[in-house]
């Protein structure tokens, strides 16, 4: 008889397929983080300047389409797709997925209201189109009258969405590489950085692009600091987390992590952004495109690394 003792419900005797998350989840996590960042930057812009033409406020238009793509990839990952509505029949305070489902549900109307409240200044064509359909009048008036409270709620929801994408992974006790409290904050900062990159790309004003480039330099520096703290926490943690850390400290994902995530995804774009701030002529898309690609690669790395590491050897 082969005796198998485990304290974890996640093992191959209960669930024979443990390495199940493919491209859909990292893409969703990236888009979730990007959406959260766009919500935060858009809301801050409204709170600071009221409704006026700014790049973060313009990008509010794209929040729902971008989020729809992310939620579609999440839907593709579901094994039992017809049961997705069951998420909305309950709320479990201890379940990050339950939190995420409800946060995503709240993001839709709140983002829409913030867009309606700022579209006159940022998307006049949309305003004209909406005005022709009289049935939206009351909604637009409501959004314009309560713009700041709506921006406040958007800000809170943006932070919740950004942090949740990290906690979704860090709550997995059975995955030593994910099981770190830094992950929620790290995903939030990474999402903000992606959003700041998109804003600097979309911005028509040089001063505004300069501000968001500077902001992104700070955010990437924060990301590097948090990655450092995460690794320090792992290396000084229990044996299994130390073993998980070896994945990037000499193990099979070392090259991928240091070359693609750290060097090409963080250090190279931040270097280009610094050159841009110093006035060197650079193609406008280059640094933001690298930041966005880096954010996506980072999610792929984290999802893969977590699924490789485990507390039990079998």
């Amino acid at each position, binding site marked *: 008889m082969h005796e198998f003792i485990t304290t974890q419900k996640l093992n191959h005797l209960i669930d024979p397929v443990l390495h199940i998350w493919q491209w859909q989840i990292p893409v969703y996590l990236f888009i979730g983080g990007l959406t959260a960042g766009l919500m935060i930057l858009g809301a801050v812009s409204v709170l600071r300047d009221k409704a006026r033409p700014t790049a973060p406020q313009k990008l509010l238009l794209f929040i729902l389409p971008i989020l729809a793509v992310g939620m579609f990839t999440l839907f593709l990952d579901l094994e039992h797709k017809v049961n997705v509505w069951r998420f909305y029949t309950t709320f479990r305070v201890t379940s990050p997925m339950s939190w995420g489902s409800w946060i995503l549900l709240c993001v839709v109307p709140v983002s829409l209201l913030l867009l309606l409240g700022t579209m006159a200044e940022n998307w006049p064509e949309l305003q004209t189109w909406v005005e022709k359909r009289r049935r939206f009048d009351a909604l637009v008036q409501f959004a314009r009258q309560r713009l700041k409270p709506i921006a406040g709620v958007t800000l809170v929801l943006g932070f919740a969405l950004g942090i949740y994408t990290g906690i979704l992974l860090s709550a997995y006790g059975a995955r030593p590489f994910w099981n770190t409290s830094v992950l929620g904050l790290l995903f939030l900062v990474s999402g903000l950085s992606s959003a700041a990159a998109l804003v600097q790309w979309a911005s028509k004003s040089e001063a505004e692009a300069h501000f968001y480039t500077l902001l992104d330099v700070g955010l990437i520096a924060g990301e590097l600091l948090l990655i450092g703290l995460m690794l320090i926490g792992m290396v000084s943690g229990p044996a299994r987390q130390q073993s998980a850390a070896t994945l990037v400290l000499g193990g099979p994902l070392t090259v991928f992590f240091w070359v693609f995530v750290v060097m090409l995804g963080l250090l190279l774009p931040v270097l*280009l952004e610094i050159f841009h701030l110093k006035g060197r002529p650079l193609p406008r898309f280059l640094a933001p495109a690298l930041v966005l690609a880096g954010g996506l690669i980072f999610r792929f790395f984290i999802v893969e690394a977590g699924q490789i590491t485990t507390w039990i050897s079998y």
Partner: protein
Amino acid sequence: MSPYLAGIGLGVVLLLAFLISGRGLGASGAIMRTVVQAEKVVSQAHVDQNFYLSKYGKGDQNPWDNWLVLLALGVLTGGMISGAMSGRLRKQINHGPQISPRKRLLFAMLGGALFGFGARLARGCTSGVALSGGASMAAGSWITMLCIFAGAYAMAWFVRRLWI
């Protein structure tokens, strides 16, 4: 940057490559491995059956799992950083006054394909033979390098209209 300083820098990089990785620099290997990777995506069976390709990409073998690939990536990244530092990072196609950008790209592709084919026949390209072989004072490398220069000068006569 002064070309003399850049030359010394390249020499230092080569020395460090010998010291750290135990071998010199090369370039065409990365392209060849990328081609194998592309062929794997299209037809793994073809790669498995082909004697040459299977050495690099048989079954689960990852052709990109090699230091030359990272070296090529580093060269591209370093070039980008250098261009950004000196404000030269912009989209442009350098070509002679007599030809169009399209013709320039066509001939560049033709030259590149011939170069890649030759490099595979010779089991390495000019960077391998001139830099790595030359630095280790291999007589064969020096003779090959001189022949390459002689061949290039001879060929330049026939394609001079591309540049002047």
